[in-house]
């Protein structure tokens, strides 16, 4: 399994490097806004955070699409499947690699946000756990978009996965902006993740390689 995960990371190293860079940008952005919130103003914070969030979800969706699209068109799984590897292991390794990329972005951000919250947040119960709630939703959204990418990427057609994944990602991101970071949106994102994973699994396990 480790070999397969390593292979996924190495084959899609661009996304992992981008994740590290993006994580650094996010950490810098959060730190800067916390220290200079008055100067920045909440409108400026909002104006920057929305495109960052869109880039984040589109990046992970693109990663999912690329992993599946390249696999199908380069017949990577067809080659791996004649080695002592099962299809389920190939897909599991792929999903673990995707999760790792998401964590590379979100773990440093979470640590930074938690530390800053402890330093700056007022000691009232209303503000505690707010950061955790936002980051959980962002994690679920990023993973949901990644799973949508996986689902849409398993095709020989280039246009359909791009348009399909883009459309569905915008629906998801819009939903988060409309509904906020509450429990209902988390439930919805979990449902999307489960549905996408089941369908991807079923497609990948039963299709010709």
């Amino acid at each position, binding site marked *: 399994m480790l070999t397969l995960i390593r292979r996924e990371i190495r084959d899609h190293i661009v996304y992992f490097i981008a994740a590290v860079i993006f994580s650094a940008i996010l950490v810098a952005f959060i730190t800067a806004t916390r220290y200079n919130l008055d100067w920045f103003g909440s409108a400026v914070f909002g104006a920057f955070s929305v495109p960052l969030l869109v880039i984040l979800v589109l990046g992970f969706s693109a990663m999912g699409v690329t992993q599946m699209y390249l696999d199908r068109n380069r017949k990577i799984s067809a080659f791996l499947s004649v*080695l002592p590897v099962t299809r389920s292991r190939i897909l599991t390794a792929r999903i673990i690699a995707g999760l790792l990329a998401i964590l590379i972005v979100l773990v440093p951000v979470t640590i930074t946000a938690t530390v800053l919250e402890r330093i700056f947040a007022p000691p009232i119960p209303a503000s505690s756990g707010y950061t955790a709630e936002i980051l959980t939703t962002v994690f679920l959204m990023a993973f949901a978009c990644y799973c949508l990418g996986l689902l849409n990427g398993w095709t020989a057609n280039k246009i359909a996965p791009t348009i399909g994944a883009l459309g569905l990602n915008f629906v998801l991101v819009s939903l988060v902006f409309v509904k906020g970071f509450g429990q209902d949106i988390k439930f919805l994102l979990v449902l999307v993740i489960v549905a996408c994973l089941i369908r991807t699994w079923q497609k990948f396990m039963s299709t010709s390689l």
Partner: protein
Amino acid sequence: MDDNVIKVENLVKYFDGRCVLGGISFNVPRGCIYGLLGRNGAGKTTIIRILLGLEPATRGQTFLLDTESTNLAPNDRGRIGCVAEGHNLIQNYKVERLIKLCKDLSLQWNDESFGHLIETFRLPMDRRVRDLSMGMRAQLNLSLAMAIDPELLILDDPTLGLDTVARRQFLELAIEVIQKQGRTILFCSHILSDVERIADRIGILAAGKLVVDCPLEQLKERVKKLRVIFSESVPVNLYLTEIINRQIRGREMTITVANWNRQKQTILETFKPSSCTEIPMSLEDIFIECTRPSDEPVQAA
């Protein structure tokens, strides 16, 4: 525990409503070298892909090493070496990286044998697979398949793209594997002389059916091509069954008959031909005769 390493039971496969395999059944016993022959599009590669679990069957079942193809565990796959048609290796990898990946994923790896093969084939480690010639890719694929000391070797047109020298090297290598006890090989090729050289059982696919499935020697024994000259005109009906091909020129008739036996010989003798001579047939001749349309099956006795 069955002694058949490969079992194919009533295998049916449709592609877009077109029947490619119409109920194929055959077994390959342990230690056997099975040559699967057929014209382009006959379904040889489809059978192999279904056997390896890369393609789902429409109906029927296939088993490798006593396990259904769809349920092959890594432990089973680790005992099977495979050289696929077109050599679908990961094209954008460097040779060195591909070898490392295969080695890391394999359950066993014979460094000595692999090193020997790489040296023999002089494969460049620093080049990408896509930059290798077709022949080099075939050699790399074969080396990777052999490095795991496979119990079962599945070769789908392995010599495709190889030059004469490389083809000879490959065959010698295959013979070396055969000499190791208990190794089973399923071998598809268009080069019938290669198959004739190493196979001990032959299957011929035509129009989605397995028209021949018997040992090579028996096949040569049972399919006969005869030149029969009659004193008068050639009889309209010879009352012989399983005539694969018949050509008449004056008083001379050339017939190819499947499942030739004493009974058929007696029937022919009742017409009192002035001469009856057997024309020796190579595997290629038999293959051409058997893959003509409207064949009758030649089954093992």
